[in-house]
Each structure stands twice: as C-alpha cells, then as structure tokens.
C-alpha cells in the first residue's frame, strides 16, 4: 500500500528531528495521536497537532501519560493507526500500559525523545538511559521492537518504518530517539507519496461466528478486526485463549506467552536493521546507536587515520538485540567499544553476546551532553593495544570524569 499524497509533505525541508517525526507520523497514515506535554518531545506533538487536519487525523492532549497511552491502545482497536509521544518521566508512567499493549498484541508506536534521567533529570538535554527500560520496563515477559534513529531524516523515515513493523508484528514499536536528534536541525527530504510503502492493518474478513482474535494465522501473528464491525471482540489483559477469554492454567499460559515472545524472536532476521562498515577484518568494532553513532564517527575516522583497523556497527534496531551478529563478530575481532549516554546498558548486551571472546569497553556518559569524540578515540586506542582478555566489562574513564574525580577541575557554581 502506498502513502496517501494528502498525508505527505513532499519536498526538501530544513527542520529539526521532532518536526520530522511529526511529518513522518502523518505520512505513515496515523490517524490518532494522544499525548501529554513533556520536554523535549513537545515539538513532535505540536507538529502533528498542526498538520493532523490535513490527513483527517486527530490529536488529543490527554490529562496525563497514563491516559495518553491507554487512549492510543483503544484507538488502535477502533481500527486506526495510533501513537503517543513522550520522554523521561512520561515514559515511565506509560510502562504498565506498554505491557498491556504487548499482551493484547496491539499495533501502536511510541516516540521517546530521551532526556537526561533519572527522575526529572535534565529535561532539556539529552540522554540514552531508557534503553533497558524500553525492553524490560513493564512487568512480565513480553517482546517489543525498538529503533534508534540518529538524524532528523531518519526520524522521518523510521517513524514510517515503525508503523509498518507495528502492523506486521502486532506489537508496540518504540522509536528511541533522544533530545539531541530531536532538536537537531538538518536537511530532511520527504519523497513523493508513491515512494512511501505502508503496511496496512491485517484484517480478518471471514464470518463473525468463526473469528478468534488470538488465533495465529499461518505465521505467529493473528489477524485483527475493527471494533464496531460486528465481531463481538473480547480483549483482556489477562492471559487469554484464542477467543480472548481469560485463562489461568499453566498450559495455556505457556502456549500464549511462548507465541507472544516467539513472534518477535523467530522473526528477528526480518526485523533487525544494522548499518555496518569494515567489520570483517576489524580489530576493534564500535557499536553505537542514536546520537552516539554520529559522535562516534569522528573517533572512528581518527583511529583509522592512525592505522587502527576499525569497524563500525550501528544498531538501527536495538530491540530485538542482534545477538547473532555480535556473537559472529566476537569470533574475529579483538574488542568492542560501546559509547552510550548512560552508565552501561547496551554495552552489557554486547558483553553478554561476546562470551568472553572479545573485550568490551564501555564509554559512558552521564547525559546532559554528548561524548567528546576524543574519548571514543582514546577508548578505541586502548582496546586496540590491550593484549590480554579482560573479564567482564571495561568502563573507560572519560576526560571529563578524570577531571572531575581526579582533581584539577572545579565545578562552576
């Protein structure tokens, strides 16, 4: 299915990431956005509220994040593509309903313009510390898909892809961007509508009496119907059978939950998108995502100039995690360097997949800013020189931390 020309603002724009995401939501054919204002994600919601009438779509500002995400799930069952936009504390408030959405196999998209945490943190500045929360934040076992764009152009492109993935796999899809990308102004090229491929809702068309809302159809993914179409849907957050009726026994739970996680795990190869360069014969590979992958480029170039065989693996899809890729690379490379704006989240995933075959160097950052590319360069040099295998993770001390914690630097009042 192609995008509707009415929804696509074709042309060359000079806009920030939040605005690009707002345009992407419209182009993806989303008809319902509910949100609650939170810095630094507001521009995306404002943009969509402004352009929504063009696409005959609705933006509703709800009373809080709990209401926003609940309304988004309701709207999805009413038959439209829906999403919410948030950051920081708002994301935390949405956690319960994210698990609910995953349990009901609801297609919806969540845009998280990450900010510095924990708690209110640094509302106006960047962070990448919600990555683990996006995977494990709600209680219970479930799987989601998370994408981490690194430019306004990607925020446009991957917002559309996020909607497509949500429809294909009937699951919540998180766009885990950050303040830096959200507020970065760059050229964004919006193609003509006929070049934008959209995934329509996979609807069941058979007779009402036979419809089973949670019976997988060939693959792991059941077909949906719209509320009001005469199918007498029954949707419950309880563990349910194929009819949607709550069940409490162990056998049913294992059957249902197995499919809930397997529909993502067994389709990993189709879902995961990576950007990879020079990894084949690299002695050190930088693994990064979101804004950190932009910053890492300078460190990588510098290392290459110095003759280090350096590879670059960018995680466009962060969840499901590309285990097999890291396992493969760990056989040939000496070390991974993982810069991320947190004190170690994805780095631990990389370490898990390494099985001790390669060293893993984390370049941490507290947030409220991005890495100094020199820190990434220094970590690469350290990783390239290190001859022995180091168990566990190596936490590289950045220049700023050395200054602050080893003297010679006075914090400004």
């Amino acid at each position, binding site marked *: 299915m192609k995008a509707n020309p009415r929804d696509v603002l074709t042309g060359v724009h000079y806009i920030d990431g939040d605005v690009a995401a707002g345009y992407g939501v419209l182009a993806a054919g989303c*008809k*319902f956005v*509910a949100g609650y204002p939170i810095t630094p994600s507001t521009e995306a919601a404002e943009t969509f509220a402004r352009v929504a009438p063009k696409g005959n779509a*609705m933006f*509703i500002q*709800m*009373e*809080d994040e*709990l*209401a*926003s995400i*609940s*309304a*988004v*799930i*309701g*709207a*999805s*069952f*009413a*038959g*439209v593509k*829906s999403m919410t936009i948030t950051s920081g504390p708002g994301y935390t408030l949405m956690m*319960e*309903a994210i698990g*609910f959405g995953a349990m009901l196999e609801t297609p919806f998209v969540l845009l998280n313009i990450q900010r510095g945490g924990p708690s209110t943190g640094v509302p106006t500045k960047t962070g990448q510390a919600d990555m683990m929360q996006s995977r494990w934040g709600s209680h219970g076992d479930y799987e989601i898909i998370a994408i981490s764009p690194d430019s306004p152009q990607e925020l446009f492109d991957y917002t559309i892809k996020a909607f497509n993935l949500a429809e294909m796999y009937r699951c919540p899809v998180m766009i885990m961007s950050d303040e830096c990308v959200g507020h970065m102004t760059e050229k964004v090229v919006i193609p003509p509508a006929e070049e934008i491929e959209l995934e329509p809702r996979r609807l069941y068309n058979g007779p009402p009496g036979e419809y089973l809302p949670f019976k997988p159809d060939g693959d792991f993914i059941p077909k949906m119907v*719209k*509320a*009001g*179409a*005469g*199918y*007498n*849907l*029954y*949707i*419950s*957050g*309880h563990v349910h059978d194929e009819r949607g*009726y*709550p069940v409490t026994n162990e056998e049913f739970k294992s059957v249902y939950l197995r499919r809930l996680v397997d529909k993502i795990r067994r389709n990993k190869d189709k879902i995961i998108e990576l950007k990879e360069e020079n990894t084949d014969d690299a002695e050190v590979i930088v693994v990064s995502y979101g804004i950190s992958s932009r910053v890492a480029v300078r460190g990588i170039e510098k290392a290459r100039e110095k003759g280090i065989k350096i590879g670059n693996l960018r995680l466009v899809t962060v969840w499901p995690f590309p285990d097999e890729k890291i396992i493969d690379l760990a056989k040939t490379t000496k070390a991974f360097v993982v810069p991320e704006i947190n004190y170690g989240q994805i780095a631990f995933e990389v370490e898990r997949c390494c099985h001790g075959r390669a060293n893993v160097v984390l370049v941490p950052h507290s947030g409220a800013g991005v890495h100094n590319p020199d820190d990434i360069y220094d970590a690469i040099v350290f990783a390239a020189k290190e001859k022995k295998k180091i168990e566990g993770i190596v936490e590289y001390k950045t220049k700023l931390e050395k200054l602050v914690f080893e003297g010679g630097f006075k914090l400004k009042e």
Partner: protein
Amino acid sequence: METLKTKKMKEVHPMEDVLRMNRIPHIWCPGCGIGLAVTAFAAALEKAKIDLNKVAIVSGIGCTGRVAGYIKLDSFHTTHGRAIAFATGIKVANPDLKVVVFSGDGDLISIGGNHFIHAARRNIDMLVVCVNNFIYAMTGGQVAPTTPLAAYATTCPFGSVEPPINIPYLADSSGAVYVARWTTLHIRRLTNSFIEALDKKGFSVVEVISPCPQYYSRINRLGDGLDMMKFYHDNTEIRHGEDTKNLDIGFQGKIIMGKFIDRERPSYTERFD
C-alpha cells in the same frame, strides 16, 4: 398403545442475545449486586433502539471490571483505572461507536479519578456505569474512597477516618450531562436510566449502589445480600433533580436516589466537527 412423546425443549437464556453464555457461570459471589446491574444493563440494551454492533463496552479491573467480559458486544477488559481513557481513544478514533464504561468505584473514582474528571470536562460521548459497593472487593475488602466514614474495612480495622467521595457531585461539577443513582433493588428504574443515558449525547454517569455481602457487609456485620436489599428498601428515597451536593452517603445512612442531572452540552466529537 401410543406412548406420550415429550418434546425436549432447548433451554435458552432470555438474555442470550446480549450475554456471552459460554462465559457463564460468572465469578461474582452469592448476594453480590453486580449481576443485578448487568441484568438491568442487558435489559436496557435490548430495549434501547441502538445497533448493538456499534456499541463497545470497556471495563477496568476489579469485580465490576469483569462485566465487559460477560456482555456480547465489543468488550475490552483494560488496565486498572484506565477504562475511561481507553474508551476515549475508541470514541475519538471512531465517533460512530457508542461507548459504555462499566466499572467499579475504586477503578473509576480512585485510581481512575483523573480520567473521570477530564472525560466529563471534555464531554466525551460515553455512558459510565459506576457500581459502588463501598469497598475494594476483588482484593479482599480494603478501604475505598467511597467507604462511608467510620465503616470498617480490612485496611482500616478501626473504622474509616476519611470522608467518602460523592460521585454524582463529582460528575456534576466536572460537566457530566446526565447523572443518576439507583440501588440494585431498584432494577426497573435503573434499567430506564440506562436506556435514557444510552440515548444521551455526552458524558453520562449512572451510579449503582450495590451490596457486597462477602467483604463490606461481613466486616461491618450488616448481614447477607437479602439484608442489604431490605436496608435499601427501608432507607432509600427518590428525589429527582436533587442538588448533587446533598448526596453524601453516611454509614448505614439514608441513600438519596434519582435522576439529578439531565442537560445538553456539545460533546467532544461534535465540537471537533
């Protein structure tokens, strides 16, 4: 000699069209009033002139939260407190649907209180049925925001010290266009209220006072379900149009019932057009 052949009659539940018969028996305790509220609602659905394919019913969590699962409509059993927010999403995304929220006092007024206020303020076109049994029953009888002052509950073993909320007053002051209250003894009046409210455009609230013999009545030594019905018979008074300020419910005090608010205000989706 001819043998007398008796024709085997198929037993059919009179409300089979609107109930999910394969979900019966239900989970509610003997003497509980929720089944009566459901019966009244089912009767209203049959009598109201609406296309049942275009009605969605949303519940939250709790004893009353199970109602959606027994009604043969598009049924949604959502997270605790978020039934109204979820229903808002359905209604705004597809304004052709009639949306009913059927949940309990704890779900709608405590954890979901904010959504109740704001959906009323926006005047989202939905019927909210709030079954008020004065207690958190599914979890075993804890104090609720509706528990009358001095009444006992498992988490206020010395009697509640918190004044309870007056649901019709909250609905009225938040902007609801239709507010009524009945007990589960007053089934015909309750059914008529449901029919009226289903026909109403805008945020309508029907509070149903219901006995909870297992948790509320036992700890307060009020007898069984029948005793509570007798109590409703002797201690209720119908005052249509009564100022909602005067509708507080004291412990074993008089319960004022009736239709308190019936007014017109453009609904959210109408304003958007």
